[in-house]
């Protein structure tokens, strides 16, 4: 599907260029030990977000549903989720360097997805939406992926926490370290992100489980195990953190490693996807 004569992939490429620009400019400023304007960084990321939203919208129109039907789209949607959350958090909490790190994460995710062979990301022509006719399943999938975006941002704040702690412990306060937010602020944001991510994932799994109970064969065991394992791990981490049993650098390391693990389950979940069942009645173009 095209807009202004450009297909969705072109818009997604342009979004990726924005994220790479944000990351590149941020790196240039850091190397020169200059503070980049937060507004400029925010503007670049916001421009990328708008372009990516347009690209995903066109893709969604093409696949007749939320564009999370293959690995390419899943990576794109995860990056989009992280960016959308950054746009809220960045404006509210004004954490310096969060925009830089979010640009970095989104640049990597979007470039990896765009580097996939065309066969991997071309939408399959379908008569119905990728989730059949069930809006709830589509919502479940979108919510789950959005929570991955939240966990992505949590991984970034965890990384920033570890860098700040390293800087203060080893008395290296210049360069990148001089621009990092305080460890208390980072910890506070991380906890909020963790709770948000767990709530969203729980909500998503709640919706999914209703569907699963009705049709147990609709979900393959690898997908079930992978999803539940991610949910359980984050829920346990949240419980320990809220009880002050998992704090400081251990909490940050787990936030970082758990996201890497969660990303690894994405192809597993995607591979288990059942093709959309043929609808009982012919679908209409919407």
């Amino acid at each position, binding site marked *: 599907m095209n807009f202004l004569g450009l297909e969705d992939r072109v818009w997604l490429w342009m979004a990726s260029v924005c994220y790479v620009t944000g990351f590149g400019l941020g790196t240039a400023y850091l190397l020169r030990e200059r503070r980049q304007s937060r507004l400029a960084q925010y503007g670049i990321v916001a421009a990328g977000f708008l372009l990516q939203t347009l690209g995903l919208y066109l893709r969604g129109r093409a696949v007749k549903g939320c564009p999370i039907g293959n690995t390419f789209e899943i990576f794109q949607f995860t990056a989009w989720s992280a960016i959308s959350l950054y746009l809220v958090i960045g404006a509210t909490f004004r954490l310096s360097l969060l925009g830089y790190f979010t640009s970095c994460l989104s640049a990597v995710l979007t470039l990896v997805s765009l580097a996939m062979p065309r066969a991997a990301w071309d939408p399959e022509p379908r008569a119905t939406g990728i989730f059949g006719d069930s809006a709830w399943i589509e919502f479940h999938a979108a919510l789950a992926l959005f929570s991955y975006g939240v966990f992505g941002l949590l991984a970034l704040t965890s990384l920033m926490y570890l860098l700040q702690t390293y800087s203060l*412990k080893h008395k290296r306060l210049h360069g990148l370290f*001089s621009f990092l937010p305080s*460890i*208390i602020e980072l*910890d506070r944001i991380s906890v909020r992100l963790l709770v948000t991510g767990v709530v969203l994932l729980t909500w998503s799994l709640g919706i999914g489980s209703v569907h699963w109970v009705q049709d147990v064969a609709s979900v393959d065991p690898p997908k079930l195990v992978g999803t539940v394992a991610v949910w359980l791990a984050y829920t346990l981490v949240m419980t320990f953190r809220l009880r*002050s049993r998992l*704090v400081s650098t251990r909490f940050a390391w787990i936030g970082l490693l758990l996201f890497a693990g969660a990303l690894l389950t994405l192809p597993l979940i995607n591979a288990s996807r059942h093709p959309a069942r043929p609808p009982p009645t012919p679908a209409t173009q919407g």
Partner: protein
Amino acid sequence: MSQAATLFLLGASHHTAPLELREKIALTGDKLEALRGDLRGVAGLKEYAVLDTCNRVEIYGVAAGAGTIDRVQAAFCARHGMEPANFEKIRLKLGDREVVEHLLGVAAGLDSQMIGETEILGQLKEAYAEAQQKTTTGPVLNRLFQKTFQAAKHVRTHTGIGAGQVNAATVAVDLAIKIFGTLEHGRVLLVGAGEMGGKTVRALKSRGVAHLTVAARREERAKELAAAFECNAISFERVRDTLAEYDVVVCCTSSPDPVVTRGMAASAIRRRPLRPLFLIDLAVPRDVDPAAAGLPNVFLYNLDDLAKIAGENLAQRKAEVARAQVLIKAKVEHLWPQMQERLAATPPPPA
């Protein structure tokens, strides 16, 4: 044909005069006001502003007609009971474009003893505000000072000339901010009565610390400190039990043994798992067991660490001077033609 008005600077600074001579020309007490009165009567002096700080006394003015600057100097020397010949030995005298360049450098902190310090900009703004209030400035100096303030802000934003703190006490405050973000709700314990500890606590208080407690071996000394800092005092023996209640602990006793051991810090951090503990050890021999630095969520800095960071920051500021000067030159290029136009429009003194 009458001569165009000129912009001038007359004075002395730490670059030209040692402390004992700067003391003699300082405009203490009523002297500043009296000098302003003297200058008001100087023929040909169209505009003026006086900057008086610990490190400099500078008169910025617009002179119309020959001999005006000499008359200003005579008035200045007379006010201080100083021979003009002696003043000329320490005098800083600049004209026109050099004045613009000098003022921009002063405002940006390039001419300060502590390069990049920001206090001078506030002092300059104060001097200008007073001159404006006394209506001793006009189109030339108004333009010059207003553009100078903008340029100083530009230089500070686009260079690292003011980056990092350059004395141990303020470095400690910066570190506390890196750990806790804001200090308004921070709880600080000062252990001991060392001078550096007092300076650090004052710096912390100036950044908003509201909850301060002091502890000293001698009870009367603890009470003295509590009165000086308007805070609570606890006995030295209670430090061990109450350590977990504090975010920042500043130690500066003369004790030969550690006042805060690794075990005490470990116990404190266990009791407050969500809040880091920042230990500032300003004592020699050290008050905090260095092994405490290895504990998670404990940040320990001693006197050498703080001095090293201050030294690095100062070196970084010095490395930025050349970049700041390039920016200032560009600003002078832009500003000087405007000043020339205004100087040319200044009416000559009556014949």
